[in-house]
């Protein structure tokens, strides 16, 4: 506890600090004064965009020790002017949620539960199955003999939080492989 000083009397403090309405520094406790916002001690701040609705609010992502420690609205954004809604404000938890999955899991045919799988193995297995499904569902031509050159054995449904660059690669790869059943939340 600090030693009592007449200068710390609230009215004097108000006059001394110029906080005329008594709603700012004059009414802060020592405890409050000693708190530092975690945003102030972040190693870096990265500009981002909220991943929820399509308003496109600006976000500032605060990083310390390579962890996201806070996400706040970006006052520079002419769209959102620093504001975030409940979902945008909770997006730090989207990143750090305790229930988030960070391991590849595999469920075998008929199995009652998951088993772990190496990511490299999983991608190889998916590539093998992709080639096989592509072959099984291949159609060279329609009933009138007109070329189709496609496969109906593979389909995809994407959410609308996929980046433009990601969508571009997905469409490019699937199209080159002859897969046409590529869909997105945009239809839903």
């Amino acid at each position, binding site marked *: 506890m600090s030693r009592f000083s007449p200068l710390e009397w609230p009215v004097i403090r108000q006059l001394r600090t110029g906080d005329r309405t008594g709603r700012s520094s004059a009414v802060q406790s020592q405890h409050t004064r000693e708190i530092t916002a975690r945003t102030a001690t972040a190693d870096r701040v990265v500009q981002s965009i909220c991943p929820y609705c399509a308003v496109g609010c600006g976000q500032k992502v605060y990083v310390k020790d390579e962890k996201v420690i806070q996400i706040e609205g970006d006052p520079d954004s002419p769209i959102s002017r620093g504001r975030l809604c409940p979902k945008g404000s909770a997006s730090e938890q989207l990143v750090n949620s305790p*229930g988030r999955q960070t391991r*590849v899991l595999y469920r075998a045919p008929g199995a009652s539960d998951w088993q772990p799988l190496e990511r490299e193995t999983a991608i190889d297995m998916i590539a093998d199955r992709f080639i096989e499904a592509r072959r099984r569902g291949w159609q060279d031509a329609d009933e009138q003999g007109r070329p189709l050159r496609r496969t109906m054995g593979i*389909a995809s449904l994407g959410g609308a939080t996929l980046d433009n660059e990601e969508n571009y690669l997905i469409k490019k790869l699937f199209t080159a492989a002859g897969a046409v059943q590529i869909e997105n939340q945009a239809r839903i």
Partner: protein
Amino acid sequence: MANADCIVIQGSNMAECHPVGFQWVTEAKARGARVIHVDPRFTRTSAVADKHLPIRAGSDIVLLGALINHVLSNDLWFHDYVLHYTNAATLISEDFEDAEDLDGLFSGYDPETGTYHLKSWGYQTEDEGEGHQADEQRNKGDEERAKAGGQQYGSGGAPVGAGKLVRDETLQHPRTVFQILKRHFARYTPEMVQETCGIAVADFEYLARSVTENSGRDRTTCFAYAVGWTQHTLGAQFIRTASILQLLLGNMGRPGGGIMALRGHATIQGSTDIPTLFNLLPGYLPMPSVTAQTFDDYVDGIRTTTQKGYWADARAYSVNLLKSWWGDAATAENDWAYDYIPRINGAHGTYQTLMAMLKDQVDGYFLLGQNPAVGSANGRLQRMGMSHLKWLVVRDLNMIESATWWKDGPEIASGELKTEDIDTEVFFMPAATHVEKSGSFTQTQRLVQWRHQAVAPPGEAQSELEFFYELGQRIRARVADSDDPRDRPLQDLTWDYPLTEDGEPDAEAVLAEINGQFLTGPRAGEPLSSYTQMTDDGSTAGGCWIYTGIYADGVNRAAMRVPGQQQDEIASQWAWAWPANRRILYNRASADPQGRPWSERKKLVWWDPEKKTWTGKDNPDFPLDREPGSTPDPQQGGPAALAGDDPFIMQADGKGWLFAPKGMMDGPLPTHYEPQESPVDNPVYAQQQNPARIMFPREDNLSAPSGDAPGTDVYPFMFTTYRLTEHHTAGGMSRWLPYLSELQPEMFCEISPELAELKGLEPYGWATIVSPRSAIEVKVLVTDRMTPLTVGGKTIHQIGLPYHWGAGTDAVVTGDGANDLLGITLDPNVQIQNFKTGSCDIRPGRRPQGAARDELVREYQRRAGLTIMTGMERITDPERELNEDPLRARDSGDVAGRSTAYRPGQDATEQEADK
């Protein structure tokens, strides 16, 4: 929106679903604007609006049509704007017959296929000879589009052919669009609004007054909608109706005007621009159809060389895409590798794919941040469909219900599926969040904003960019030595992306490819700065023409971040909007035909006669040197053919379309049909539902009867679904977050005190809701926010249902899914399902568990006498006299439609097999 003088929010709960965007509505209101909310429910949007008009879900065309009628019959339309900038004066074919004349059908309806032949909706042209030639070119394209699901016109209008269009500037000729419009909407009166929508005449008059008094030279009105307009069997026509009204009032292309589509996901706009959709290639180029076997066929299907505007250069856009994907392997000799692209021959949308899954025709399925077990219509069918797969890849942040239905889904609980019998292999791959990767989102106003990576993804999580890059590497390695021609597109694919320090593909390099570059000549290797630099000779490449300029001068313009405070309200240095960093589309319409702003107050772009150029606050959306009075020869085609008063530069005639001679599958004008399931008979026509809607008549996708048909009383109430502020769609990004789950912990319904009393429902108690598809249990919220409406002499109770919950075990909060109640019926234009209206019963208490739940659903079905044909009639009264010669245009090959259309008999037989 902040510049609007009146804002009508209809089909959207903007304050709760786009809370931060809503600040601009609040800003407009603070500047004096009037805000009106039209919605079945009273929400926080209504709470801060000047007025809330409760409406019966699905009746919006009647309300908007009555506004159009009000504007036309009281001479309140914006004369100079309508005469010069729209097709009001254009004459329509003598063969056209309106739905008003044919009791609910337009001319050209083919009852066999449930589709329209479009020829009779066309423009009249002056020069027979040239018109005929253009017709042939045009028809070729129409046929292709028809075969491909008929919905791929993209951001441009459909080609209307060439030849000088016949116009009557006095608007008196009975075949002018203007006169047709007048006749078409004449029966949409305030009384009909009261009868159909449940909105009082005085309330309608308030709305009409607000909209018309706040439109004109000095004032503008803005409409805002969301999926409350799109998720219907005629959703595209809801938006068309608003477009007609806004064109008549002169509110398009102007500050504070327009129709704002409030899209619901971070880059759902980007997902259509650079689409992962079956019918589109990047930049709204169509996926090639089986009928377009040559590249020339394909390009002719997109444009005619003599049409006006920028779509005329579609050949260059297509060549640039092919050069981007196949590089040196795409040459003039091989039609730019056009044959490397697979062909579509019908709709291959997500619901058609579901039907294919149920028939064991799909082996593998990728779910990329999407949860159809909860988020798509008829949830049970979605889960059953997945149980037919050989393998399923789910890439998500959390263990969503679409990844676990095989062990904890409702069908496991009911005993319908047994885990050990399900042979589907499931791969769960953890994904990276938005801060763990760099890339761009395109928000709802076409603004492309870059996100910088903040941290690395945890554990084995990775971005889709990295996953698909790697998957592509491995697939390509497996076919590298193949001599099978089907592998050539994979072998020749340009797939070398530079890697970042972390070993991930560099997203900015992908953005550069999307932007495009010069391939030859002195500037070879330099990024393109505008799509007008694209050529069709292979000397340039660019992956998505509308995004060209985003990487001009090698600078990532999506990452531009000049703070808003340091800019004017256009804020053109914050990120980049396609096309050409233009913030308001068609903004040439913000000036009068002579190029002067309509008023000082609504000034945006204008013609500078000194410097002979268009200029202004925004980037002008018009050829910069085209004088306002110029009338170039329309026959030369392309941007050069645009007259000085053709502001709608992507339309084939440069005009805003009050009447759509091409492009819509279910009518050139919007007209009211009842939803798939409705408590009333259509008050407008004998035709009950949209005759062109897409249906899937199956035992597991039954519909309730409508109007006075027997069995309607078994499902006497309407329900409509919606979002909450604290959750996001099917919950994958919200129900796993403790904060958000605590804010909205459980599934509930909103009902009126009257309905609660009628059915004996206790506040905060349980209720069971039964539809022809499923039964779900919900907590009961009794609230005045729901208003019983009087429609067609009946009291209509509407039940509100949020749809975020799903049955599983991994989320912080779980619950029954509202989408399980919904059947699958689609809009024919865009193949979107109806989510916004359905028939149901509600009763107190929890639903039965296990197999008894299905038994309850079946008991209701029996009581209502449902068959797979209930509600599936295309023509409501088959005995009625149909259009004399519905197939008059059949020989032209001029057809709209889909191969998946329901055909009487055929699918019913198939249904037997499905069982």
